[in-house]
């Protein structure tokens, strides 16, 4: 009844900016980045990407409220690059990673048609005839 509309989770409102960067005044090379209409999916990806980069001293995020579709990403760097730049780099790298992943996936998926033989279910086990006998643990709803 009180549930917010589903689209509010991903559709930007009028005049809303998707990314806001607040430079921290006291801590050097630190910034808090507010990313709206996104959730843990992106936040976690970004954080782990950031943490794997040597210039990053600290990267963390929080989702202040589960019903508010935004998160705050905190980044501190060693000074060689600004947090904004690091975030951009991280995003680029992430896009690259995901593109590679997608390509790989597609390639593997085409093998299915080439091999043509065995169908596989979600767990990679060969499925015969699409029936679920013997796989009773599969959630059938």
């Amino acid at each position, binding site marked *: 009844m009180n549930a917010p509309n589903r689209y509010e989770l991903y559709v930007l409102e009028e005049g809303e900016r998707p990314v806001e960067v607040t430079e921290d005044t006291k801590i050097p090379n630190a910034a808090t980045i507010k990313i709206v209409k996104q959730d843990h999916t992106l936040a976690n990806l970004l954080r782990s990407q950031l943490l794997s980069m040597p210039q990053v001293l600290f990267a963390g995020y929080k989702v*202040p409220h589960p019903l508010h579709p935004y998160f705050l990403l905190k980044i501190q760097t060693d000074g060689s690059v600004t947090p904004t730049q690091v975030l951009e780099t991280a995003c680029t790298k992430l896009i690259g990673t995901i593109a590679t992943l997608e390509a790989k996936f597609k390639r593997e998926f085409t093998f299915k048609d080439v091999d043509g033989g065995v169908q596989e279910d979600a767990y990679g086990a060969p499925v015969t005839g699409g029936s679920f006998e013997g796989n009773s643990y599969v959630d059938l709803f």
Partner: protein
Amino acid sequence: MSQPSLVGSILERKPAGKPSTPPSQTTTKTGFPAVQHRSQSAFARARQNAQKATGQRLRDVPVVQPSSSLKNEILQSKPVPLPPASILPSPAASQRDPDAWRNSMEEENLRRVEAMTEEEREQERAEILEKFGPHVAEVLRKAREAREAKQKADGEGSQEVGAQPSPPSSPSRPRIGERTRSFNSIMRPSSPPSSSASSSRPPSRADRKIRFADITPGDIHVYESAPPSPRRKALALPSPSDSDGPTISLGEWKGSSQKSLRRREETTEAAQDEGRDVKTEVKVADLEEGTPEYIRQRFFPSAPAHDPSVQWMQAAPEEEPEPEAEPTIRFDLSGSPIPADLSSKLPTHLGLHHHAEGSHAGYTLDDIFLLSRSTVPAQRASMLSVLAKIAHKLARTSADSKKGIPELAGQELPLRKRMLATGVEAMSERASVGARAVELLWECIVWWDDVIRDLDGVELRDLDLGTTATSSEGALASLPLDYMLPQIANAFAVGDFPPETLVQLLEILHRLAQHSNAMATTIVSTKGLIANTFQRFLLTPIPLADDTPLPTPFALTFLRIVALSSRENASALLDPADSLLRFVISLPTASPFPVGLATTLLSETLRLYAAFASYGLYAHIATTAQEHFLQLNRYVLSPQCLSVNLRSAWLELIEAWIVCAHDPHRTTPTHEILWSQVVGWGWIDDILAARERLTVQDEELWRRIWEASAAFLEGARINGLRGGEEERASALAILKESFSSGVEQRVVAVALEGARTALGKLSSGLRQAILASDVPVLQELGRHANTLAAATRLFLACAPRATPESLPEPPFILPFAELSSLCAAITNHPFWTGLYTPESTLYAHALCRPLSSLLSRYLRLVRTMPNTALDLWMAQAFAILCRLFPGDEDFAQRTAIGIAETITQDFLRLRGWNVPEAVWDRGGMAIITPFLKYALRPTPELRVGSVWKTPQSISIAATQRLPPLSALTPNERRDHALPLAKDWLFSPLDHLLRSGESEVFKNLPESWDASEAEVVRATLLLIRVSQEVLQYHQLSGFLMSREEAVFGCMKVFMLEHGQQEPSGGSQEEVFRDTIVERFMTDLLAPFSASASQKSLRTPPPSIHTSDSIDVVAKRFLGSAVPFYQWYTDFVGLYDSISFAHPLFARLLLPPLSMRYPVDYRKYLWADFNHVMRTIRVPPEAVITGSIAEYLWPVEVDAEVVGAYLRALVKGSLDGFVRLVAVHHISCKIWPDLGSDGEEKAQKLLRAVIDQGGHDVVRDVVLYRQNRVGTIMLPPACFKQQGEWKASRLEFAGRCGAEVRERLKGLLEGQ
């Protein structure tokens, strides 16, 4: 006559070595013995028959006893003791079997007769003739002839002869007797053979005078132990045989040589058995009489040996040995346990076998509980009394498991509950059952904790659980009060129990009232209980008649306990209390009661009034009965009164009333007693006059006098003219001199000395806890402390102004230096911490109350000293605040506010502390005073009356008793603010963290508008100051522990938890506030590893003096939220917002030490592996007392080791966390660091080499650490040299050639 009579009593002898068998031919008609009615015992029947047959007085045992062969039957039927030879020559010894003993008897008789003088023989003969009549010789002669005749005919031992009745003394009786016997032995295997039962009792006949067996010492045999089952062996009384084992003879019976006799019997009997199948006979003889097999062989020789249809008969004998499944304890009737070996041997006649199962003597507890529900009142009563005796002993076991009944140690609580249930069930019965039940209840309730009978200042709920709190519910809590109390009320009303039982009931009530305030309330609310108590025990009829009962002073004690329990209960007692005036209106000397009793009644009544007055109740009686009280005052303070108790009670009451008069609006109802009245009655002059007659020994009275005078002077300060200047002057005129050189000075000196001695004793005897043995010492210490506290109060009351400020000159002299050192010793004494250890006496805190009251008064005294530095006072205040108990809240609040007011900019600047101005901008400490006040605020409904009664305390006290110790444990969230934990100063943060539900925030003044950061600044400053002054004045026992400081600082960070938004950046996080940051860093500085060289020692300390952090956290979190949950939130917060704040990172580390469970390490290292690289804390900055705690013992959890590896190879770990990871990985790999060198170690090494970067591999390979000695920090731990390098290389070789190759450079370098 020195010699025993010739015609002696009959003594049973064993007729033959073999058990007898009944004549079979008489019963073979049907194959069964003839039916015989058994309404009479075999014995009685036999005797009846004998009488019927002979019509003659039986002198011998009526023979029920069988003989093994028919021939014996005849002989058996004859009188056993033969007439003396002088009258009748003994019959010739011609019979075979019994003849042997007959012969020997004859010989003996002959010998005795021969040994006699002629006169003696004559005398004996006369006696016999007189007893048996003139025809006795004829009778005996006939008997003898018959016997001799039979002997001749008896060549073959034919059975027909036995079947014939033998004249005249051998009627058919024996055969019936035999039959009965055989019948008996089948049906009632355990009934004792009648021969033995009757042997000690001569048969009786109505027309005969009573004679007693003339037993010489030689007739008595002491058996080492009697057989447990009469069935096995006859219980008492044949003379000892070989099979009886060793016996002690009390002397040999002259003339009898039992042994040889028996042996002869056996041989003759064996020779006599020719007419029978020898084999069977032997077998039958071997069998025990009465067993089924015996019966079969004897009576049914043709029946198959194991006939299934008579199988049921077999079972019984096999049960006989009865292996006791577990050695249950058996009790005798006096409630003492019977040793297991004895219980199987004790004879049955002791009354210990009346239980259902087994043949053991004594009753198991289950038996007793079962029998205590018997419908036979006598049985029930006696079992209840056994139970009471057991409870009596068991009570001591519960105090000390070696006393009482150590066998039952550990079961006291369940047993006590069962006993109580039994007692309650039976208490409504009448007469002795009811009385025994009350006794049982009394043992279980009152006697159980006998030592606490006089304790009135504390609830004793804790005692209920005993030392081993196995059950959630205590024994007393399990009592069905709503049933029990009306019963007691009824018993008081009816009064048909004996007086002792009624007093026991009263004592039970008293103990229940001691138990808890709730129970006291239940007692008061039980209909008629209080009224009946008054009626039964106090309002006894006057004038006294001989049989009127006297009043029981203990009832007043009980009423006082009830009154002390709560204000409501005290109010409920007010109405009936009017009737107690009867004890007041007549002085003990004029009382109808004996003087001693009247004095006790009077003093108990006065104490009850004092208890009322401590709530401000019932003070009007002073006005109502003022004539009597004036009279009483004169009497009590005159030399006529000898009772110290009475004087002390009266002075206590005066003090309480004076306090009531301080402020007429504080009493209930108001204006009950007025100051003008108090002045008018002139109490103070009487009191001060009374001191003339006291000596140094009357310490208690001195205390009371000082307290009362002080109360008066305090009142005068409020109500008197010009602040009571005049009153003070007149009091001082008397006291000043005396305190400097008079008797008062000596009293104080004695009290000081006594207190010091007691304290010394306490130190020497004290281990970790306050044990029961320390209680008397503590009590003595408390007594002296009370005296000193009273003197201090008087001093303060004599000071010109009430406000705490230094006086130009003291009103009178007290030994300040000694007092100060004593108070310091008390404050720092270890027993305060011992109070809460589980072994401690559960009411010890009540005994410490005088000490805390002394300390609090001393603290005020210190403030008045002109030369006391403020910081010293403050340090003492911080220390003493931790020593206060519920009831001292007012004082605690005043002190805390005093401290907060003292900490000003100037105060700190004077001491050279540089504090940022920003702290003072918003009022400094003022912004946290509401929080501090709240932290020391008592819960209204649990408000405990103060020791130092003030108008405020009497108006709001809800109870006068301390809560039980369990309600005061420092490490729980509890209802009582006091006693304080050492980190109580963090409490403003608690309110910030719980601002939603905090009471303080609802009641803050409107002007209060401080920000979170400001509150935190002020709080941290206060804490810093407290730690500094405590440190400076060597009160290090009151410094916060490392864990408390760490948890307190965690709270500061956790203020950000759950915060929604940084609200536009205007309000930054509290922990980033520079002042807050600085204060926290300062606060933690003494706890970091660099602060002490000891932190590098290894192995880590095995015993930790301070509570672990989760225990500390429980004070704030309560037991519902574990510290782990708090820690996960804390880590989550760090992960999201910290920007790798260094202090934040440092606070993450303490729970990672190996001293804490693996969960914390798992959480941080495994689940938050990515944050480890942001924790760049150098080893010196770690907040720990021992770095080694993080290193040793080596981690065993594989998941955490994996996380170490992951963190090492993936990210750039730095500082301390790197040391920890390298250490544990290395220790898992290298045999010289304690690894087992097996497959896992090799795998781990390979993983490090394959995945790790160059520096990781180098560190792991070159890492060395000491297990004992000093921990090596990086880089020293990577630069050691030694043999171990070779062994590591050798180990690397085992992992493969390429591994060895890679490590070669590292390990062979240099």
